[in-house]
């Protein structure tokens, strides 16, 4: 928040040259040219009770990257994810999403670019029907009715839940609710998707379906999970967090082969 204005130059200096190739075709010349990018620099975050959940995080996600975020409970994974859509804002450092520094003036745009899916679909699905819930995001983006209908249809089709529009969330299985939860953010057409523990509590079939879904997504993907098999299967890049800092960031295959690293941070190889 405090450093918003100072960082434009900084962001552009760090922008990788290949970003332009992946960028959205109609978004030239404005911040949208960096669609799908996230950049965090020296992000510190302290909760009101004084607990420092993030102690200086530097992170860059490129468009279309699939990145797993692993680490023990309390490592700061959820806090980090909430920074990306501005729910929490750093006490120090900057978060830049699609080239925009996250702050009061950019928050609307940032939230429409970042689809955040919470762990418990009962938190995510708060409307009486599936349709209402998937329509919530587009409606609150101020889109016209016809477009909202189109978005809802597309999003439900993408997660294989067409025909469930008028079903009630509390009468569906956990796997179905998780898929609808994903649809609720896909309908906002975000370029970045952030998931908290998507595979927790799913039965094997639900898990397989989820993996298929994740593999098919083209958006930038940051997924926090304890499911190391999921990590190995879907994510080429893995970030290990512990104690509020990133302790390792690299190719999944290499990290998972590093027995000492995994043990030191309470993780196990798949």
């Amino acid at each position, binding site marked *: 928040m405090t450093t918003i204005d100072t960082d434009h130059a900084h962001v552009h200096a760090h922008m990788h040259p290949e970003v332009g190739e992946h960028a959205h075709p109609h978004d030239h010349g404005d911040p949208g040219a960096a669609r799908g990018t996230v950049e965090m620099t020296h992000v510190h975050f302290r909760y009101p009770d004084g607990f420092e959940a993030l102690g200086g995080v530097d992170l860059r996600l490129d468009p279309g990257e699939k990145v797993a975020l692993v680490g023990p409970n309390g490592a700061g994974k959820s806090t980090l994810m*909430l920074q990306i*859509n501005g*729910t929490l804002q750093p006490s120090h450092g900057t978060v830049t999403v699609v080239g925009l520094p996250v702050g009061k003036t950019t928050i*609307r745009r940032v*939230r*429409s670019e*970042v689809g*955040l899916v*919470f762990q*418990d679909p*009962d*938190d*995510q*699905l*708060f*409307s*009486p*029907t599936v349709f*209402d819930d998937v*329509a*919530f*995001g587009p*409606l*609150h*983006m*101020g889109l016209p*009715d016809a477009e*909202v*209908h189109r978005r809802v249809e597309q999003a439900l089709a993408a997660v294989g839940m067409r025909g469930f529009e*008028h079903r*009630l*969330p*509390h009468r569906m299985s956990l796997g179905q609710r998780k898929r609808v939860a994903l649809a*609720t*953010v896909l309908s*906002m057409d975000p370029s970045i998707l952030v998931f908290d523990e998507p595979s927790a509590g799913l039965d094997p079939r639900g898990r397989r379906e989820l993996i298929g879904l994740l593999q098919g997504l083209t958006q930038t993907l940051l997924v926090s999970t304890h499911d190391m098999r999921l990590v190995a299967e879907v994510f080429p890049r893995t970030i290990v967090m512990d104690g509020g800092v990133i302790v390792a960031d690299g190719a999944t295959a290499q990290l998972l082969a590093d027995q000492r690293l995994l043990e030191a941070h309470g993780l196990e190889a798949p």
Partner: protein
Amino acid sequence: MISLLPVGSAVAFIFAWLVLIACSATAGLGPFRLSRAAVVALPFTLAALPLIFTVHEQVIADLVLGPVHLTISSEGLRRFLTITAGSWLSVQIALLLAFTTPFHDLVDALRELHLPRILVSIISFMYRYIAVLGDEASRMLRARDARSAGAGRGTGGSLRWRATVTGRMVGSLFLRSYERSERIYAAMQARGFEGEFRHLGARRVGRSDLFALTVMLATFVLYEVLAFLWLPRL
């Protein structure tokens, strides 16, 4: 409408009941399902029971129970029966609505009737989360039972003990709900909510709806007039 019928209008009540049976049958609920289900509301009419003894017109009997002297009046009895029949029928009407109309349609209707949006949202959230809350409560009860020695009903000891445990459970249910509400709010914010609910304008009150509403209200008024002026009463 039912509660406005004059005291003792037995014929009007019976006719209304027949209409309800017809509605229930055409709605595919079976003719007497509503009538049976509405019986659960009857204990609440006990509140009207004192009427039998407190009205002092047309006394039909005197009861002397030790120092207590009660008079039973036929007028009081009529009023009591009217209230009982009226509430039984009203509950059936409410049930008919609930059985035949999806809840989100009711919520949409409330919104169209210009109930304040915040109230509509509260009702809609309540409906969505009552099952979640119920699940949480039953999980906690199960956990309590699993850790209470003994078997059968009222496991684990005295009423006082159970009351204590229940009190704590209510408290922790409240905390859990509070935390959930924070998470839900975060989820809403994450999807662009900025304090004002928006809704699709797809379902509007149309001309046919207004026509149906007018016909219905006219029928009600006519029925009331009939009941007051013409239909025989007890």
